[in-house]
Structure formats: C-alpha cells, structure tokens
C-alpha cells in the first residue's frame, strides 16, 4: 500500500512543479485547461439538448478515422488525422440516424451499436497493424492520452519566436475558435437547443445547427484525443457543464462557470497526478468529478437549491436556463 500511495510531501507536490519543473508544469496545466474548457463549452449545448451520450459516441468512434487516415496517407500530419477523425464523427451521427430511422431499433441501442462497432473496428485495425509492425500506436494513448509528454514536443516556432508545444498551441486555437463561435452565434445556438419548433418557426435551419454542433464536437474531441484519449474526453464534455448547471440556471453564467471549472480541475489534477504519480488526464478527470460532487453536495445542503428553484419557477422548463437575453 505504501508503494501504491506515495507519502504526502508538500514540497514535492505543490512547490516543485511551479519552481524547478515550471516549464513542464505550465504546459500540462495549460493543455488540461484548454481541453477541458473547449470540451466543456461544447458540452454545455450537448447537455441542453440531452445529447450528452452522443458526445460519448463520437469520442469513441473517431478512432477508426484516425487509424484509417494514417493507413491511407501513411503519415500522421495533423490535417490528415483531423480529416479522418472528423469524417468518422459525422459517419457515427449518420449511422445512428440511419439505424434509428430505418428500423425498429430504439435510439439508445442505435447509439450504442454505432460507436462500439466503430471503436472495435479502430482497435482491431490498430492492433493488427501493430502486430505486423507497420506502426506503433499506443493502446494506452487511446484510452487516456499522454498529456505528460506534451511539453516534450519540439516547440512550434512562429516568426522566429518559440511559442510552445504544437499540440497545446493547436488546442489553444481550438478553444479560442469555439469561444468566438459561441459568442457570435449565441442566440442561434440557444434557440435551437431550447426549442427546435420555435427556431424553425423563426426561419432557422435547425438541422444545419445540429450538424454544426456535431462538427464542433468532432473538432474538440479530435484535438483533445492526443492529450486525454478517447474515453476521458467524454468526462471533459460532460462533467464541467454538469458542474456549471448544478450551480446556475443562466446560460452565460454556466459558460463562465465551465471555464472556471476547467481551470480548477487542470490545476488540481496536476497536483493529484504529481502526488500519486498517475496518469495526468485521469487525475484531471478525478479532480473534475470531485468538484462536481462538491457542488452537488453543496446544492443538496440547501442554500443554493432554494434560490435556483425560485428562479426555476418562472422559467418554462426547469431543466433549461432562462431565455433572458433573447
């Protein structure tokens, strides 16, 4: 047991990362923050549409896309992988809808079938390639990523200036793009999530927004894949918005809380992983879940709950934030 849980050494856990190992720590934390925040922002809309498990499905099913793209183009440039994963994500959504529309299979089973089969295909391809020695994709990377290796990448150089590890830079850009897109299309995203019928009557193309959201989901999940793997990305999609929804019923506040939660879980997760000497991404998920449980217990304790119920009383659906800014 002593071997399993290292002793709690204040200096090693809390001081060292920010002093001697600063150059590594900062990028792990930043990457964790970028991933959690970008996934969480998109996840907010998934949660509103009650599609949290579509996030689960897509994050699993991008794997065969990645592997196939690699097999076809024989090199793992970002854009090729990206394209493969993106099309795999959209394929999943299409398969789910096909099975659901064309047969008597219910949507929940359709989701489960679509993503597990694609994931199985991905793992099967990956392991047969690996056994032939063609490529080496780490199975562990698929499961929980390699966030600790990100600071070791040769840094991106832009105009002669070293910015940082390319994965982190890419994830940062994705985060900024997602945040900007939410700011620009705030009202469209809100209305289509809140009331599809209303959105249609207002002349919006709901299916376009649906697929736009799916596209955004695929983008964040693909970029997060490297750092946190396929399955832990689900946690990043679902847990921050749940934390935010637990504390507020107003969408802009929720978005803010999501970002705050992302930062907190990145830092907490880092220290946890330093202490226990375990997977960084896993520790960040544990930290994120822990924060949600705290919020949950807090609301159960009462004080916040009363207020949020009082707010609920005047909103149409108690599970949706108020449409205040419309």
């Amino acid at each position, binding site marked *: 047991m002593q*071997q*399993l*849980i290292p002793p709690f050494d204040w200096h090693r856990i809390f001081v060292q990362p920010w002093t001697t190992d600063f150059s590594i720590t900062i990028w792990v934390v930043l990457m964790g923050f970028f991933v959690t925040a970008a996934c969480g922002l998109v996840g907010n809309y998934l*949660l509103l549409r*009650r*599609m*949290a*498990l579509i*996030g*689960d499905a897509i994050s*699993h099913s991008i794997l065969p896309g990645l592997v196939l793209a690699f097999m076809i183009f024989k090199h793992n440039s970002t854009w090729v992988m990206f394209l493969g994963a993106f099309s795999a994500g959209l394929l999943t959504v299409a398969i789910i809808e096909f099975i659901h529309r*064309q*047969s*008597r*299979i*219910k949507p*929940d*089973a359709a*989701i*489960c*079938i679509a993503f*597990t*089969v694609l*994931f*199985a*295909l*991905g*793992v*099967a391809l990956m*392991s047969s390639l690996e*056994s032939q020695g063609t490529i080496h994709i780490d*199975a*562990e990377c698929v*499961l929980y990523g390699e966030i600790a290796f990100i600071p070791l990448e040769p840094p991106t150089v832009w105009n002669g200036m070293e910015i940082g590890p390319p994965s982190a830079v890419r994830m940062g850009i994705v985060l900024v793009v997602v945040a900007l897109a939410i700011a620009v299309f705030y009202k469209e995203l809100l209305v289509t999530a809140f009331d599809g019928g209303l959105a249609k009557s207002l002349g919006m193309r709901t299916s376009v927004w649906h697929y736009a959201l799916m596209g955004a989901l695929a983008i964040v999940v693909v970029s997060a894949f490297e750092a946190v793997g396929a*399955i*832990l990305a*689900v*946690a990043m*999609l*679902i*847990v921050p918005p*749940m934390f935010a*929804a*637990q504390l507020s019923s107003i969408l802009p506040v929720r978005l803010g809380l999501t970002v705050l939660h992302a930062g907190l879980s990145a830092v907490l997760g880092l220290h946890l*992983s330093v202490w*226990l*000497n*375990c*997977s960084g*991404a*896993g*520790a*960040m*998920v*544990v930290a994120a*879940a822990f924060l949600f449980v705290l919020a*949950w217990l807090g609301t*159960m304790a009462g004080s916040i709950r009363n207020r949020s119920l009082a707010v609920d009383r005047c909103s149409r659906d*108690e*599970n949706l934030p108020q449409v205040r800014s419309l």
Partner: protein
Amino acid sequence: MRRLLLPLLLFGCVFLVPEVAHAVRISELTDSTMMDRAVRFFTFRDASLRNALIGSMLLGICCGLMGTFLVVRKLALMGDALSHAVLPGVALGFLWNMAKDPLAIFIGATIAGLLGAGTIQLIRNTTRHKEDAALGFVLASFFGVGICLFTMIQNVPGGNKSGLDKFMFGQAASLGRGDVWLLAVIAVLAVGTVAIFYKEYTITSFDAGFARSLGMPVQIFHYSLMLLLAFAIVSSLQAVGVVLVSAMLVIPAAAAFMLTDRLGIMLLLAAIFGLCSGAVGAFFSFVGRNLPTGPFMVLAAAAVFAIALFFGPRHGIVSRWWRQRSRSARVQRENTLKAIYHVLEGNEFRSEHVSLRELAERRRETLEDVQRQLTAVRRTGFVTLFSDAVTFTPSGWQRACEIVRNHRLWELYLTNAAHIAADHVHEDAEKIEHILGEDAVRQLEKRLNYARRDPHGKLIPGIEDISLGSIPQPADRATGFGPAPH
C-alpha cells in the same frame, strides 16, 4: 422445449473443459503460418485455447440474455455506463493481493458496478440532470478513477506485468480455468433466473405500472436484473474488455430484435448470436497472434446485426424495400388491367380484344411502354397477348372487375356517406382500390344497398359479372351489363 435447450447447451460446454491439460502457453506457441494456427485452433489441442473458446462462448450467452432485457427496456446506454464504471473495481480487486485473482476482481468490479448504478439513481433523484448526463458522468468519472488506479499500479514493482492491460480490450487467451468456471456459474445463474422468472421479467419490462398494480415487487426484479447485468459485465471483462462489453450486450440482442416478435425467441437468438460472436472473436484473436479479442467479437456480432438489419425477413430494410417494390409492381399491373377494362367498357363490350393502340391512347403512353407493362401482366396469367391486341383470361377478367368494382364502390361511398363532391373522389379511390379486402367490400355493398351505379353513372360490376369469367356476351345484357340503357 425451448427452455430446456439453453441449459443443455450450457452444460455441454462446461463438460468440455477437460481435466488434464498438456498445455503449451499460448504465448509460447511457435506455429508460424496462419494456417497452422487455424488448424491448431480447430483441433482443440491446448487447454488454454479451450478455455479461451469456451469462456468466449459462455460470455456470449450471458451477454446476449442480459442484453435482450437492456434493449427491450431501452437501457442500452446503462449497460455502456456500467461496463465503464467497473474499471476502478477491477483495479481494487487486483490490489487485494496484487495478483489476478478472478474472485477478488469479480467482487471488486461488481461492487464498483453497483456503486455506479447507485450513483446514477442518486443523481437522477437529487439533481435536475437528466438520465443521459447522469450516465455520462458515472461512465467518465469512474473510468477516470480506474485509469488513475491502473497507472498507479504500474508504478508498483510487479504491477507492470500484471496483465491488467488485458482488461481494456480483452484477451480471451488469458482466461484461466478459474475464469471459465466463474463464467460458467454466471451463465447457469443467468439462464436459470431468466427461465424461472421469465413471466415476471417480461411483465415488469413491458408494463411496470401494471405489474405494480398486480402487487408485484417491481423494484426487486429491476435490481435483480441489474445485479445479473453487473455479473455478466464483470465476468466478461477479461475476454472482451471494459470498453467493448456494452457492445456484446447490445448488438446480439439488437440483431435478435430485428428477427423476431417474441421475447422468448429473442432471448434464445441473442444467446446464440452472442455465443457465435464469442467463438469467432476467440478464433481471430488466436489466429492473428494474440490480437485483442474484444474488437473481433464485436465485429463478428456487428456482421450478424448488419445481416439482420438488412435482410431480416419481416423488419429488415431490404425485405421491406422488396415488399414495397413488389406492392408497387402489383399496383401497376392492376392499373393496366383496369385500363383494359375501361377500353372494353368504352367499346360497350362488343369485342373481347383490345388493341394495343387503343390501350396506349387510353393510358397516354407510348406503344412500347404498354407492351412492356402487358408483358409483366402476362407473367401473372391475367391476359393473353397477341401481336397487336390483348384479351383477358378468366382470372384476369375477375381481377379487373374487382378493381373496377372497388374503385367505383369507394367513390360511391365517399360521395354518399362522407359527402365529398363527386369530382374529388377519384384520387382517393385510385389508392383504395388496390387494398380493399373482400370483407370491406361486402360491408360497403351492404351499406350502399347494393347500388349498381357509381357517382359518375357508370355500372359497378357485381358478383355475377365477376363470376362470369369473361366479358359479357350479348345474351348477358339483360343483367344490365354492357351499354347503359337510355
């Protein structure tokens, strides 16, 4: 009969496990070609291989049975969440004595699974989050805890070679005798429980409210099913892997659902599909030099599902498409018959023959089109085709009369009973005429007092005209057929 089959099958499998093992460890096998390995697989020479195969088949049975209830209760994603949530339990079970002890891992994982199910229930009851969020949370956060524990174990000396990584994507070859016995016990338990309480599980799955009104302990049956589900998941982990157990639960059951309308048969089919996919997965995993088993099992199950989805006799996509096609072909044929009748009627039944040119004019189509349609009709034996003309056979005359009668009766019914204007009823009758059954016709005739004329003043063929077998001869004019008397 059907109830006996499964246990028999099961015991057969269990007794196949031999006492003596002159085994080579699978990793030590030196056969080089795929062929050699395939031969080795089918001769069942090695005990470890037998373990792998029997284990995979048993897990297929367990998962198929439990998956059936998941699918009909719309709990597929619950299976997914629970199968991810057992991961920390696996790690803790391993930590119990730092070895891959099947029982310790089984207990740990079951506890973790039940804890996950409890957390889902708790989130749903005490927060405003919906089912999907609760499932997603448990799935992801439990899995995260599991990952942390796993990476911690790997740092412990001796933890690295523990073979715990096999729990991720599954490796049937790593099944030991203990694992197979465990699987056998779970399979017997699952089959037995489902067989004994079939009635109770059916009614609580179909209509829980009604079951409760009968005074049944619905909650107990629900939780016992969840417990069995947890057992099935946990005992299957090593061969299929954490990530893909849910696929083995849902896919065979979904394939069975495409093929049958009875729960009993669905259970049986799902178990068989599960068993077959298990065996196929074990085979590919072995032939391909210890590739992970789970993905291949899932792909085998997916192939079965795809076949059922497309070619299922009643609900399959292709079958439905085919039925639709043949229906529209029939409608087309019947429309041609009707057109011939109309031409005959226009000629006041003076001749049996209808020239193709007349028919083409009537249908406003080219001669070639008409010829093609008539060839299709001739295949059903309704018409005799000459070089430039066509006549009805007796059965053709009958069918044509029926169609025209259905059309005109329906028009009359719509104008008389539904008060729709006479010039608006044609379109509707065009569709109805092909699907009106004999019973409905009798009712309509009665309702309309056996009227002889439709709203446009045309004669409605009656039963005597239909039984005539050919177009009316001049002598039959007395019955009112032929040119309308002025």
